[in-house]
């Protein structure tokens, strides 16, 4: 149990000194937490992003698990730091979460903890999925349903999966005390009812908060630019941008597909410093695409809303859905998504 003294001046106190006027005080609900917003104030997008150099996965990675994460449509959530989450208890969490899911599914409260639930929840670590060494270990949650056919000794069918990660989330990590685990990005695949149950359990158990993570047109443009610039060895799919025009009664979607070589060539003329992308470069890149489109179709795409970006690296939808296609760029994509998730919770 937390003793009254244990809080003391943990990393919080250290940070406060850096913020302008030093209101050392008895006030805690307000002043004690000033540090949190020193990083990026109110989710304003940075004007410059570094493309991670060490985009390779770490050595201890399980290739099967990584393959599982690719080529699936994931729904994005941001998660506030989890209180008293312990990696040593994953087995116990699996057991309790299984019971919770079974109970919720049956719309009743009482279930036996055991194997006859029809479903099995497993929490496991995703080793090696890290941007920096400080990043906390990613966690995979899977719900498997027991096969209805008794003679079939095949594996249980995974009906829902979700994973937590936080790639290069150092800023957030440094600002919270040890009791908290920062796994700010959550990705779910499967029925939303399962997401709801699992999310509720995490919210109740670790006092965290799940919010849908939507992606603004501005950030989609960043993704379009950054992913276009990435090298891919194998087959290159076309770069496709989908724009939405608000019309009545039905909105009109405009799909704009570019050969990925052409897009890459354009980007290479725009980008000044390798390994770094600026807001001006992103704007310029998009403006070039817009003017090209306007020349042919006389439509100002800048007046519409960018809703979807797909490249050979990944595809992202403004509703907060993502599909990552390439393991080599997994870390890079997750770094950007983690940044967006953290800016949403701060």
């Amino acid at each position, binding site marked *: *149990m*937390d003793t009254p*003294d244990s*809080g003391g001046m943990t990393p*919080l106190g250290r940070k406060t000194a850096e913020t*302008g*006027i*030093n*209101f*050392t*005080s*008895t*006030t805690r*609900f*307000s*002043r*004690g*937490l*000033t540090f*949190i*917003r020193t990083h990026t104030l*109110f989710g304003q997008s940075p004007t410059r992003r570094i493309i991670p150099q060490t985009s390779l996965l770490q050595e201890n990675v399980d290739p099967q698990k990584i393959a599982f994460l690719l080529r699936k449509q994931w729904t994005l959530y941001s998660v*506030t*730091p989890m*209180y*008293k989450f*312990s990696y040593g*208890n994953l087995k*116990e969490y699996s057991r*309790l979460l299984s*019971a*919770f899911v079974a109970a*919720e599914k*049956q*719309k*009743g*409260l*009482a279930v*036996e903890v055991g194997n*006859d639930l029809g479903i099995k929840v497993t929490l496991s670590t995703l080793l090696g999925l890290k941007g920096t060494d400080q990043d906390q270990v990613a966690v995979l949650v899977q719900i498997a349903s027991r096969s209805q056919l008794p003679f079939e000794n095949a594996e249980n069918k995974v009906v829902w999966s979700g994973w937590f990660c936080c790639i290069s989330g150092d800023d957030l990590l440094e600002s*919270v*005390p040890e*009791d*908290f685990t920062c796994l700010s990005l959550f990705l779910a695949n499967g029925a*939303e009812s399962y997401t*709801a*149950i699992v*999310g*509720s*359990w995490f*919210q*109740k*158990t*670790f*006092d965290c*908060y*799940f*919010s849908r993570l939507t992606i603004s047109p501005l950030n989609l443009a960043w993704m379009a630019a950054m992913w276009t610039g990435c090298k891919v060895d194998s087959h290159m799919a076309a770069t496709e941008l989908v724009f939405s025009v608000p019309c009545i009664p039905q909105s009109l979607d405009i799909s704009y597909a570019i050969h990925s070589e052409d897009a890459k060539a354009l980007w290479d003329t725009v980008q000044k410093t390798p390994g770094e992308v600026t807001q001006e470069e992103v704007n310029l890149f998009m403006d070039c695409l817009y003017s090209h489109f306007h020349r042919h179709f006389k439509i100002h795409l800048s007046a519409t809303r960018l809703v979807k970006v797909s490249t050979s690296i990944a595809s992202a939808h403004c509703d907060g859905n993502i599909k990552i296609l390439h393991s080599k760029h997994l870390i890079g994509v997750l770094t950007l998504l983690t940044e967006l998730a953290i800016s*949403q*919770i701060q």
Partner: protein
Amino acid sequence: ALPSWEIEGMQQRENAKNPKQALQVRRSSLSAWQIGERTAGPKTADLKSAQKHEKGKQQSASDRAGNSTQDHLEQALTYFERGKSSDNFNEVLQKHLATVESIALQRGLSPEGLDVLLNVALSGHLVNTRILKCLIPASVIAESSVVSAVSWLCVGKCSGSTQLLFLRWLIAMFDFIDHKEKLHALYGFFFCSLQDEKLGMQPHLQALLSLYKLFCPELVSITLPAKMKTYFKNSESLWKAAINTIRRRNQGTSPTSQQLILGTGHPQSRKRKWNTQLILPACSTDANNPTRSKEINHADILSHSESFPVEQLHTFSQLLQNIHRLEFPSQMGSVLRNSLLLHYINCIKDESIYLRLYYWMGQTLQEECTWYKLDNQQYEEEFKDFLDIVYKTECFLQEGFSSCEEFLYKSLPLWDGFCCRSQILRLVSWIPLSSFSEMKPHLCEPLAQLFFTSSLYFKCSVLESLKELLQNWLNWHVMQLDVESDPKISPLNTTLSGLVNSVAELIHFVGWIATVALHLENNATFLLYFILDFYETHSCPSLVFICVRIQRALKSLPFVHSFRYRTNLVAAKENELIKKTILQFKFSSQTYQEYNQYIMAMVGCLWTSSAFQKDIHPQGIRLDPEVLKKTRVQEVRNSFNIVHHPALMGYAILFLQQAWPEDKTLNFNLIKGRRWNWYLEYLYVQGLQGLKLFIESSINRVSQVSQTKSGNVQV
């Protein structure tokens, strides 16, 4: 055990009489006149009856239909209450039963109606199954009715299947019972009934037990069948459809607390995501997190005491007795509804508490903010309630939440100034005191835009809210002074200069918007009242910064020939003078200079008749002669001295009338020289102590007799 149950059952039946009586009273007063069946109603009812007959002609057909349905229901209830008929096929019985069923399924039954019918159903009435199946509450179920019903079970008048149906009904309706304290005391009875052959095999009770076993295996020693799959599958289904219908019907009034925490059952709303239902978490100890339970066990060994679950915390004395072993709730957001826990977290220094609250509240505000949503009508009330709770908590803690501050900063630029107005403005008043440079772009600018373009009422609301903000900052500062009397903690100067700067900026800001607002609103008295109220409220160091603002407000006064401001202005001046006594604070020399400039400007206006002459301050009160000419005010320089000042002119007129009763011309220029001093004495006698204090402290008069045209300012 049976005899004692019997007794309790009897008592309960006695108690249950009360609602019935209430029901009868209602019936006689409301419906006796409508049917005309009852001839001997109470006199009041007759009177009403006469009046209502008049109105009755205008009543719409649907009203009449509704009333008659209600009336049929009441007839039916009366019938069941009295009826001892054992004839199942009795036509009257069938008719009344049908009435009850149809109304219950359409509208639900009142707590009184439920009480009557529960008693009938469980007292061995032949149609008890049908009655039980239609017991759908319109609002709540009285706990006493349930207790009374349980007592009927002990009498053994109804069959096992009826008892079982009742238990299923109880489980399905559990959330509708208004209180549960007495009901909790009956759990022993439910467990006893496990031994009953007929009931014991029921899966519902076993389900409860297995739940107990899951979380507290040490408490449940019975062996339960290992393979139990469906426990509650059908317990609700009998009543579920009807409950949903009635809930939808009464949606406007149904308490939101009855919503399920999980949103999985409401897929019809895509906007409403599963994780954003605005429900404060229930206050409960965490049973799920083994990390935390282990810690508690560890603490037990050290302290030889058990932890105290928050669910059991009901009184302040309990809090005091168990404060050393109290567990935190699993979700910190639940403290908002629990003042005892607010007391507790207010005195515990544990960063994790604030961080948990910070994240939860920040995300909830962001996710629920009504003006980010398209179809906001539905959730605005909920959001308002939540903002009210946050505000009340801030008042309780006497401190603003930084998550709330950030929410305001993020969302005010998108605010229409209308949605949740009073809630938002109240939250503004609890923005923590911090560097104004942050507050200015995020709060002041969007607020000023709304301020200038909104109604007079909105302007006044904003000023009121900023007044509260200033007050809270100053209160906070006073508390800090107490805390920081220990110089080791924080040097007074740092904090004070930070405070003074922010306070000064706030006052400058209010001065600016107030001046513009006075022009926009044609110097509306109502607005001026709020502006002056802002300045009046605080007798504090900040008053140093006030007077220049007052004067800016006064600038507009030559165009308003009204004396109505007298009281306020004088009161403001009185307060303005209190600053003298508070000057023991360490101010920078610049502050002193500014103060002196303000004093000189004041003296220039009131005493030396040199208003608008010197440009003493960037935001000072000098006006170009050209501008002054345009006002077409005679003798501009005199217009704010103690004789011509609109706030004091009334006194000047009275003074002239008393001194020269024969002179009707009201020649103000007569007041000079010795008469100036008489007039001053006259003002003092009228009770203008503030003015007296100001003049005596700020003006060094060379001679009481000489004509004082040269004020000498001292501080």
